[in-house]
């Protein structure tokens, strides 16, 4: 009996009991759909994070106060902060850097006539706009931004607003940016850092005007490393640090941020895939169960087939093929479901989830082999049935 005969025979048998066949496949369908959509989602996450990082601005370096080691340990630190003078020194003395922005964020009460809002007050220098990839908007602003709340449909530019009761003139409104790595620049006012230090913070450290962090744009992608090296040297010089272990600042670029995000998301993806695989496994066990019941129910059929000349192998192959067809068809349907699930997830989450071909191939392959694996036990039971006993059972 050749393979094609076995295949048609198995298809005939399976289509004869459609309800049972589809219920048997259900486990594999769900398992496969969840593996594919979960992995798709997991792969969408780094892409999303990557986009976010790209929107930070090209070739950007962040110089953050604190020691990398103590930060990692989450320890309390009393490190010396970065100051505006550090930023100015970087801008003047580091040749591979074209623009430097210093930022210091404080909370503030913003008011315009009788409307008030609590928002972040970001003190910075003019380079901020170019370094952080912001664009100045037209007069009208949409979205749930501070400008809309305060000015509603009035023209903001040229108006005077108050920050902690100090009057400021609005010189422009930034385009809507959306929140970026947890910071919402749409809900903030941006003022000169020197004004912020003197009028709002009202104090300076012994070293100068403190800043939260400094961002710098390297000349191009190739000079990122050079810039990092030069900035490190300059700051060590300025802060009087000899031993690199005692650095009171550290530099992050998009790559290090990306690799941190990557580590987290790939661990997450792995976890999701592992959980989804369990349902695939359960689906396989479901197939084994139904096949075992099916062997018992079909003892007479098996006996008859053996009586008219089926060898052990013929019976074994027949039942194996049935199991494989069930799991492979279940795998295919599950794949389609998984792909549509990914489409749905892309609509519901910011992740641009996508089904990768390799995952689909692997998932269908695995579900097929699950059929083979879990089909073996029932098929062997069927193959070793004694035709006399099988024929006698009613």
């Amino acid at each position, binding site marked *: 009996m050749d393979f094609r005969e076995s295949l048609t*025979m198995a298809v*005939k048998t399976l289509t004869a009991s459609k309800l049972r066949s589809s219920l048997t496949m259900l486990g594999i369908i769900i398992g496969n759909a969840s593996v594919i959509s979960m992995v798709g989602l997991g792969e969408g996450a780094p892409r999303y994070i990557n986009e976010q990082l790209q929107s930070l601005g090209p070739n950007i370096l962040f110089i953050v106060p604190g020691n990398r080691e103590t930060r990692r340990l989450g320890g309390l630190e009393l490190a010396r902060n970065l100051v505006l003078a550090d930023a100015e020194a970087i801008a003047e003395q580091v040749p591979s850097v074209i623009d430097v922005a210093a930022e210091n964020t404080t909370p503030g009460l913003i008011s315009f006539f009788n409307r008030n809002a609590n928002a972040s007050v970001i003190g910075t220098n003019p380079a901020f706009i170019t370094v952080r990839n912001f664009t100045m908007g037209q007069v009208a602003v949409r979205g749930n931004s501070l400008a809309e709340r305060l000015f509603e449909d009035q023209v903001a530019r040229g108006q005077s607003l108050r920050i902690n009761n100090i009057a400021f003139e609005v010189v422009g409104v930034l385009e809507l940016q959306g929140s970026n790595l947890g910071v919402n620049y749409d809900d903030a006012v941006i003022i000169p850092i020197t004004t912020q230090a003197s009028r709002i913070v009202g104090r300076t450290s012994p070293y100068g005007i403190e800043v939260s962090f400094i961002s710098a744009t390297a000349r191009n992608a190739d000079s990122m490393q050079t810039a990092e090296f030069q900035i490190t040297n300059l700051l060590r010089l300025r802060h009087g640090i000899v031993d690199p272990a005692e650095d009171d600042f550290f530099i992050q670029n998009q790559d290090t941020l990306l690799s941190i995000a990557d580590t987290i998301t790939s661990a997450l993806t792995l976890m999701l895939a592992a959980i989804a695989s369990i349902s695939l496994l359960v689906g396989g066990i479901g197939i084994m169960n139904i096949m075992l019941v099916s062997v018992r129910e079909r003892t007479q059929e098996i006996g008859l*087939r053996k*009586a008219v*000349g089926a060898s052990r192998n013929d019976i074994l192959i027949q039942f194996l093929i049935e199991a494989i067809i069930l799991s492979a068809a279940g795998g295919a349907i599950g794949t389609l479901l998984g792909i549509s699930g990914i489409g749905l997830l892309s609509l519901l989450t910011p992740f641009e989830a996508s089904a990768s071909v390799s995952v689909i191939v692997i998932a269908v392959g695995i579900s097929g082999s699950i059929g083979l694996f879990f089909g073996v036990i029932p098929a062997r039971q069927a193959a070793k049935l004694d035709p006399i006993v099988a024929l006698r059972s009613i």
Partner: protein
Amino acid sequence: MPTLINLSHISKLYGSGNTEVKALWDVSLTIDQGDYCSIMGPSGSGKSTAMNVIGCLDRPTEGHYFFDGQDVAQLDDDTLAAIRNRKIGFVFQQFHLLPQLSALDNVALPMVYGGVAAAERRERAAAALQRVGLGNRLMNKPSQLSGGQQQRVAIARAIVNRPLLLLADEPTGALDTTTTEEVMAIFAELNQGGITVVMVTHEPAVARLTERVVWFRDGEVIHAHMSPSDVSYGALVE
């Protein structure tokens, strides 16, 4: 006629020690090619076991069984399956048709395992159904056929591989009188065509339509060459 079936001192034992059951004990029996023979006996007399041994479905514990000149007593499962496929046709009381297959596919089943090409299978299966008078029922599923028709499909399946031996186990047990006569007529016609027919039955009326009766009791052959006309007498003796 040459001998087709030669059982030589066949014993079949089940269990061991105190629970040992002698299903067959030292049975010797020959059936020639072209014979039309029925096996009778009370329940538990060993006639079903004998039938299983004759049909190469079961191996005897002791003794030799020469079928078509070949000692098949201790061959392995797959070799026996191949012999059954090529040389023996089975008809059962419960028909044993596969419900999901059409009459044509049911009849073609032995040829599937015999490695016959699909086109030839269809042709020969249709011819076999024609021969049992079901030429117009090729595509019917078993559930769409009457009991007599189902048994005729089973007979078509039994003869489709042109076997030497047609082995029937209570072939009329589930049929009414009219269809019993139809089925017996088919057996007689097939026997006329040269096929050896051996059937297990406990209906004297059916046995009387055959040419020879083998009588079993307690795992032994009591009469190997009983005349069918004596059957009612034999049945009374039991």
